[in-house]
């Protein structure tokens, strides 16, 4: 598409991607950079990957734990000072723990809510003033298919991701009149590093894990991180200015079969 956020003479627009050290956050940062954004990249720590990524995205590394109330304001300030005000926020960082509901410890529950829901609440609050000052912005929230249809042994994660969908709709309505568009994406199984962890947990090979997941997906195909990054790029593009409060579901039909 010949649609870029700005012409060659325009200053580069600025995006902030949380949870960008690996997986879909990493792919998203690279895609937005390819589409012309300067991308500030966050993850809980920087083991070198964030700095390396920031070098490729023309941005900066802003490592922080988003459940820390100081993190959002600090990232918005650093990005604003070094790159310019954040115009696109990709709220992607997440924590997940699987356990049967009755065995889930309260601190496991609250950790997932604190990161996935409250953490992004704070990051979003921190970037809104800059978006308001410019009269436009895009907030793109990575929810989950499990936030749409639920999942056994993942109640806290599903609740946090369902909360993000309600947050998306509320923010869509509240901020739309100010030119700030909020939308969500609900992926399901993605071919990321997490699959290796899942395979080890299940005591099977990576290929067996992929096959086990494919069987749960109507299109029999795992999403690639690039597929989800493309959904982000679509929502960040100038042509998507009428998309507001929506939940895109590039999950191969997983949420269509069980909703």
């Amino acid at each position: 598409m010949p649609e870029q956020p700005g012409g060659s003479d325009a200053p580069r627009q600025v995006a902030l991607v949380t949870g960008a050290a690996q997986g879909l956050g990493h792919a998203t940062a690279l895609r937005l950079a390819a589409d012309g954004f300067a991308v500030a990249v966050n993850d809980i720590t920087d083991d070198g990957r964030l700095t390396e990524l920031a070098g490729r995205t023309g941005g900066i590394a802003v490592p922080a734990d988003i459940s820390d109330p100081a993190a959002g304001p600090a990232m918005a300030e650093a990005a604003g000072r070094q790159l310019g005000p954040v115009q696109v926020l990709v709220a992607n960082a997440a924590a997940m723990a699987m356990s049967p509901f009755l065995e889930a410890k309260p601190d496991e529950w609250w950790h997932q809510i604190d990161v996935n829901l409250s953490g992004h609440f704070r990051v979003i609050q921190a970037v809104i003033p800059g978006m308001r000052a410019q009269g436009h912005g895009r907030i793109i929230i990575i929810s989950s298919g499990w936030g749409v249809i639920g999942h056994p042994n993942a109640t806290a994660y599903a609740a946090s991701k369902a909360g993000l969908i309600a947050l998306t709709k509320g923010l869509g309505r509240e901020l739309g009149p100010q030119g700030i568009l909020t939308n969500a994406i609900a992926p399901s199984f993605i071919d990321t590093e997490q699959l290796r962890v899942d395979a080890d947990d299940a005591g099977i090979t990576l290929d067996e894990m992929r096959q086990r997941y494919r069987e749960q997906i109507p299109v029999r195909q795992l999403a690639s991180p690039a597929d989800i990054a493309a959904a982000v790029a679509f929502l960040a593009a100038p042509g998507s200015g009428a998309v507001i409060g929506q939940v895109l579901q590039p999950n191969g039909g997983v949420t269509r079969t069980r909703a």
Partner: protein
Amino acid sequence: MTPGAAEGPVAVITGAASGIGASCAGLMRRSGWRTAGIDLNPSDTDLPAQADVSDRAAAAGAIDQVAERFGRVDLLVTAAGYYEEGIDVADITVAQWDRMLAVILGGTVNCCAAVLPHMLSRGEGSIVAISSELALAGSATDLHYVAAKGAVLGLVKSLAMEVAETAIRVNAVAPGPTDTPLLAADSLWRKPDYLATLPLGRLVAPEEIAHAVYYLATEGSMYCGEVLSPNAGAVI
């Protein structure tokens, strides 16, 4: 007529002569696709076929002609339709109901049925049906239109599942009120009082619908029965 590409993927767009269909055809063409339009009127496409999509044989004939000319069909966009508003449900005549269903639902079914063999033979393709935001939320004084657009969503979700294991994807775009000739100058949807209820306070531009169609057609391989709704906040 503007010249089109000599090779490249092929899009068939119904209702290509105006409004959303014309916007889709224009964007696909500017992006290097070869385009064929099916419309009652001539369209600015590489292969403008004049046919009534509610006529199964005519729709099939037009699509077969596209496949024969270009050797493939990568994308079908079903945008053909029309709109009638301001009719109390009790006053919708049987003829109005039948015609609306025949064009919007029948036209979609006819074109899907005609294009699928071509896509199945190559094992890939994409169908994007244009529905309406009204089908998601319901509406008053245009029940026959809304019922037809709602039925299109049922068709899309079921057909998407039926071909899910192939690389053929079937999805819908459900536009909000869009600034096209379909909306009369005195349409309810153009009134400032209505627009003020929308979070974005404006009509959707046809180019914004084309943008969503293009995305589903080019990077939408993980969507299966999706309903993507650029609607300016009319339905959240």
